[in-house]
């Protein structure tokens, strides 16, 4: 590829990256809060709550994300003859529901690692359940789950490339199309650099938060 061709490709790749970032952030917006809710459901004493949540976690973690993308995008049409959803939103919804399952398990691990005595101390001091969770439990959970969360965030950055299978014009899609038309591997290398930079920033962000929370043990 000539220098000129690369320069003319870059704006399209930046646009693709913005689409990837949109998928990334909106997925987090859906899956982080939902993950906490499902973690609570997974830890419920009541089988009627816990059991469906376990089934959900099994299905979402036990089937390919690519399959889920096809299912959520084409499923409504095949099943009910409904008008297909916007591709981008179908991708965001699928990623959101899928990552909810992974985050739920990370949250659960974090919640279960907090000693019972922390809850009891809060109860004895007269704190409400909400205060106990927001002031005492969650801040400690956050510190403990940062390392697995960091890995999961980085995986999500890379997984956004899968949205290509339902024709979302994200970074990898742009790169793959350019590679085909220029018969060159350069667009792939460029895309790799884009992903690396994004994940460097994600990793560095997590490192900063970990450092900020290292004031206690």
């Amino acid at each position, binding site marked *: 590829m000539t220098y000129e061709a690369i320069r003319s490709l870059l704006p399209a790749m930046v646009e693709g990256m913005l689409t990837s970032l949109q998928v990334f952030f909106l997925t987090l917006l859906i899956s982080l809060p939902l993950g906490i809710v499902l973690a609570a459901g997974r830890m419920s004493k009541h089988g009627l709550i816990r059991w469906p949540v376990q089934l959900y976690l099994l299905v979402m973690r036990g089937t390919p994300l690519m399959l889920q993308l096809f299912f959520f995008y084409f499923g409504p049409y095949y099943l009910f003859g409904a008008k297909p959803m916007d591709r981008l939103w179908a991708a965001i919804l699928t990623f959101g529901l899928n990552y909810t399952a992974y985050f739920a398990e990370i949250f659960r691990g974090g919640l279960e690692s907090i000693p019972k005595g922390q809850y009891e101390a809060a109860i*004895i*001091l007269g*704190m409400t359940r909400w205060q106990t969770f927001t002031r005492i439990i969650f*801040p*400690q959970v956050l510190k403990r789950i940062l390392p697995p969360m960091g890995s999961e965030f980085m995986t999500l950055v890379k997984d956004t490339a899968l949205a290509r299978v339902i024709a979302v014009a994200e970074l990898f899609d742009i790169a793959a199309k350019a590679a085909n038309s220029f018969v060159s591997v350069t667009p792939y290398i460029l895309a790799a650099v884009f992903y690396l930079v994004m994940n460097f920033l994600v990793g560095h962000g997590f490192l900063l938060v970990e450092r900020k929370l290292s004031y*206690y043990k």
Partner: protein
Amino acid sequence: MVMLSAMHMYKAFGDTLVLRDISIEVREGEVLAVIGPSGSGKSTLLRCINQLETLDRGEITVCGERMVTDGRYSDPAALRRIRLKVGLVFQNFNLFPHFSVLQNVTEAPMKVLGKSREAAEATAKGLLKKMGVLEKAASYPFELSGGQQQRVSIVRALALNPEILFFDEPTSALDPELTGEVLKVIRSLAEEKMTMVIVTHEMAFARDVADRVVFMDGGVVVEEGPPSQVFGNPQQERTKQFLLRYTEG
């Protein structure tokens, strides 16, 4: 005035009966020591009175307010009022690791009682000073020795100004050389006529500080009386055996 009346308490975990028709009463300004072998139900007794476990049967009245009547619990508002009248110091301190010493102490007065930061910090600093840990106010729990942590947790309980303070083996998690400093502050509270119930394995301390001693075994009160009697002239065979084992070390 009777501050705590806990009558005919029953509690089972599965098939294991942990409390069997146990009754204790504590009067204002009194220090009650509860002694007994491991698994005798001492901690469960404390945890039931502090609403960390639910009683199967029995009656509990705290500072004139009914908590449990014939195994039935009062309404949540009453339980909450009672909760704020009692404090509990845990064996493992259970300080909040992400809060500084000062935050550990001011959190509940501010968030639960609605005190201003200034008022809460003033009270906290006064109590920390009294317990000899004021210089640790800005430190985090992991930077403190076990004895200091336990003294902070006593301050945390006192900051809510409880009517009765319960201790669940307050020195059992401490290295032997650190128990003294914690026992000293409990003793100073006794001298101020703080109403206290102390579950402990420190026999010398119980004998010295308690107004009354309850010896528990197998979920029942085996023997009860002033320390001079329970330790000096025990009436029951089981009490004698227990004390013998303890004095032998």
